[in-house]
């Protein structure tokens, strides 16, 4: 990959990679670091098109950086937590309630949800980015959505009352 190709890839994917990192880290500074590392790994290692879509590769690299940070902070201990239940969020505006609920999800559920709902990746692309089977991704996505439905149910009641 030469400099022009790299620059084009950066322009095309910088916002998506940054947004993903931002939603995963809760911090603009950390998101910038993560996005930088993801693009630098592309620059250093290059990209082979046989490995799928470039954006999938970049999300995977960003995800590994996020995971590394979380592991360093010992916050990745309970990765998936089948039995985890996000507490109901109440008394917020919709965007704040959604933010709180998504950020309360266990990391492995959160990453597949963010990639699916916000970045519109297919199940196959998500599976490649997070290094898991498609079936596993489906299952995490299902649990994430169930958690969010439960957590955001107060919003629905408020919206119905307003109508």
């Amino acid at each position, binding site marked *: 990959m030469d400099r022009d190709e790299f620059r084009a890839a950066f322009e095309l994917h910088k916002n998506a990679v940054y*947004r993903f990192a931002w939603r995963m880290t809760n911090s603009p500074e950390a998101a910038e670091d993560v996005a930088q590392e993801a693009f630098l790994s592309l620059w250093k290692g290059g990209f082979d098109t046989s490995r799928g879509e470039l954006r999938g590769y970049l999300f995977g690299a960003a995800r590994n950086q996020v995971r590394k940070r979380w592991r360093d902070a010992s916050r990745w201990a309970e990765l998936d937590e089948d039995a985890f239940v996000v507490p109901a969020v109440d008394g917020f505006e919709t965007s704040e309630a959604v933010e709180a609920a998504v950020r309360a999800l266990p990391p492995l559920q959160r990453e597949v949800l963010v990639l699916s709902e916000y970045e519109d990746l297919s199940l196959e692309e998500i599976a490649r980015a997070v290094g898991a089977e498609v079936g596993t991704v489906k299952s995490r996505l299902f649990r994430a*959505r169930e958690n969010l*439905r439960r957590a955001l149910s107060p919003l629905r009641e408020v919206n119905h009352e307003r109508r």
Partner: protein
Amino acid sequence: MNDDELKHALRQWKAPDAPASLERRVLREPWWRWLLTGSVRVPVPALIAAAVLVVSLYAVRTQRLPISCASGVGSMKYVAMVVCHAPSHYSTDSVM
């Protein structure tokens, strides 16, 4: 909450686009451009410590100036006294 309602609710949470600083960090522009447009993030405690250090150094320097003049005069006096009261065997004759 059905799928559509959930999807609609999730879309309410917006994320910002990448800041311009990311481009500078990744594409590494020439150093002279950074001198013109760059910024440095300094932790407040470090900034305060640096400011206190600079002020202290300035204060010490301005206070020392008259003292160093006086000590200079004193040492000259001392040299003069040594020369005046030097023992006879230190006289210039014996050295010569």
